[in-house]
């Protein structure tokens, strides 16, 4: 089954994302900020990365840029979690190399639908 790296500094969001995706059979690893995610990503491989944007230590935009710089993540789908209000954030994510975004707030069904869109 596909493996997903879920990155968010909010424990409740992480739990919710992870619980939902695990329930659908995905293999989920959690990271609490960009720095931790990058480290984990380097020693593992994932079919999809879902990352929050506003995080301490390393934000989601920087994480996306860093990941795209790694050969193993050149084509890996990366989704950013973003709020509706920040259209410029969606674009910043895209410019950094993100595949797409998931708009907050979202419910588990919406999350699964979006993940299916990139992983099938």
């Amino acid at each position, binding site marked *: 089954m596909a493996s997903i790296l879920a990155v968010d*500094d909010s424990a*409740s*969001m992480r*739990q*919710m994302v992870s619980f939902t995706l695990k329930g659908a059979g995905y293999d989920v690893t959690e990271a609490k900020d960009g720095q931790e995610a990058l480290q984990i990503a380097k020693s593992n491989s994932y079919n999809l990365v879902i990352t929050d944007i506003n*995080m301490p230590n390393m934000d989601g935009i920087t994480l996306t840029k860093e990941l795209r710089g790694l*050969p193993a993540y*050149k084509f*890996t*789908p990366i989704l950013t979690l973003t709020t509706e209000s920040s259209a410029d954030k969606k674009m910043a994510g895209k410019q950094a190399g993100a595949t797409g975004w998931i708009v907050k707030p979202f419910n588990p069904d919406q999350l699964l639908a979006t993940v299916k869109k990139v992983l099938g």
Partner: protein
Amino acid sequence: MQQFHQTFFEESFEGLDIMENELLNLDVGNADNESINTIFRSAHSIKGGSGTFGFTAIAEFTHVAETLLDEMRDGIRPVTQESVDLLLKSVDVMRDMLTVYKDGGDMDADNIAEVQGKLEKLLGSDSANTASAQDASANTANENSDGWLITFRPHTEMLRTGNDPVRMIYALAELGEIETKADISELPAFTDLNPEDSFLSWEITLKGDAKKEDISEVFDWVEDECDLDIQPISGASETAPSTDTVETPTTTATTTTAQAAPTPAAAQAPANTASAKKPTESASIRVGIDKVDEIINLVGELVITQAMLGQVGGEISGDESHNNSHMEKLVEGLAQLERNTREIQESVMRIRMLPISFVFSRVPRLVHDLSGKLNKKVNLVTLGEGTELDKTVMEKIGDPMVHLVRNALDHGIETPEERLAAGKEETGTLTLNAYHKGGNIVIELSDDGAGINKERVLNKARANGLVGENETLSDDAINDLIFHPGLSTAETLSDVSGRGVGMDVVRKNIKSLGGSVRVDSNEGEGAIFTIQLPLTLAILDGQLVRVGEETFVVPLVSIIESIQVKSNNLNGIAGKADLYKLRDEYIPVIRADNVFGMNNSFESLNDRLMVVVEGDGHKAGIIVDDLLAQQQVVIKSLETNYQRVDGLSGATILGDGTVALILDIPGMIEMFKEKGVPVPPAPVNPDGNGSDDIADEAA
């Protein structure tokens, strides 16, 4: 979703604390960008989480505060005292809203609306009306029952953002029946082909009643990375399919190429998985307090069992007939068991320990608000924030601390004018310090304010009849008067503190935790309040005493001294109770055997042992038959295991397996004061020949 609520609440309350802290530390006019970022991030997380978990009221409110923070972050809006104060109020509102969502109750709608109104006013209320316009334009698409012709031409780099055209075509297939035609005309010769680029484009006919916005949504992420055209097909214009059959074979061929592109990445994946290590977990875990308490309880039992074994082991090894190598090993093992048990106990107790910063962190906000209200300038210094103490003790010490801080700001630190007049710096200093001392934690709260006006306190106490007209008191005794109920010397009552209730409650609360509070002060220089608290409520340092056949535990903190009763110092008052003249004062004599209904009293108190104790500011002497060992005991609640008993605060199990009751010293003194415990009853044991033995043992 409910299973995540607890985590959401915990992290949101933490987030609010962070916001509050950073806001208080914000240097208005020269704000640190990282601080604003941190505040913004907390607000942003709360907004995102509350929206996701269905707490829409918080999400809506936080959105407004976040917008303000976002503008500050982008440098569009200056950081003013006004906006910081408003954001602090917003933190309060968010905290209230969270509490209502968590524990139930009603929201203070007026307050929420008021603060939100102020935020919007500050923002210039131009942010609200933009969203609806976009929605309207999306809906202009007509309902088309014949289908759509979609021309999709990815730019060369589209694959590099991880977007796969095949997925999009699959997604379209879910909206209705599709026919796909690939254009491979841009495909270069194989030798020139860069597998990371995209060369294909598609024309897709989608049949059915799909809406245009559903189709747009499929390409939402790649809007800027492709040329996209979506046109309705009118019923008659079915001209395109003529070429369809010709192109079909190439479609399959090119689709494979498109899928081939991501392969370099995919191929590397399995290789990496093999050597993958488990990612490092975060450094802390959240565990229910009930689980921890269960472990603590079990470890308590373990300590008792270990003590029992130790005692039995000691007895056996003392017996010559058993002396062999097995015996040695047993003794060794028991010694090791004791060490390990003690270590386990200490480790487990530490799980419940939290740094005092949890209490100290409430103070900056309090000082900020109060100094504003009182027009005073106060600099807060906190030291020893990492000092740990038990969670329960921590929760109960919060309110007394808050009261002491209020008191220090209201009565202690003077106004800037008064301070300048007294030759001091304009800004007063309030210092909080915490450190460990023995088995206790000491919290000091000192200010460099006016100190305690001893004369005024004494006059007030005389006026209230607490102190006799001609009675002279030591400085310490005068300072101690401020903890007396009904004594407040503030000349004007304020809503901050000072109705004379409070300091006595502070002392009572601290005492109920087995701690003490004292104050030292030099008039004009300031005051220092020293709170001493046990590190934990689960263990007690006790003095074991024998009363009749029973063993009791007297908390070591309440013992002043132990003496042998001299009958010429004994006075009976009105045949009711005994008083003992201890140097300059008279203290009541409490006969433990009578209090607990054990009828083995001796006729005379002469030469018997008396433990002088203090509880709630009163001294008393407790008559016991013998002083035994001093040891740490694990406290077992009487309420949970049996029922509340006056004069007892709990029980413990001793090494030999017997139960010893723990005396509640303040409670016993209270009982004495209330009823005047019966005078020594008629001798039940007239030939009481024990007194000599006790005198010997005590000697």
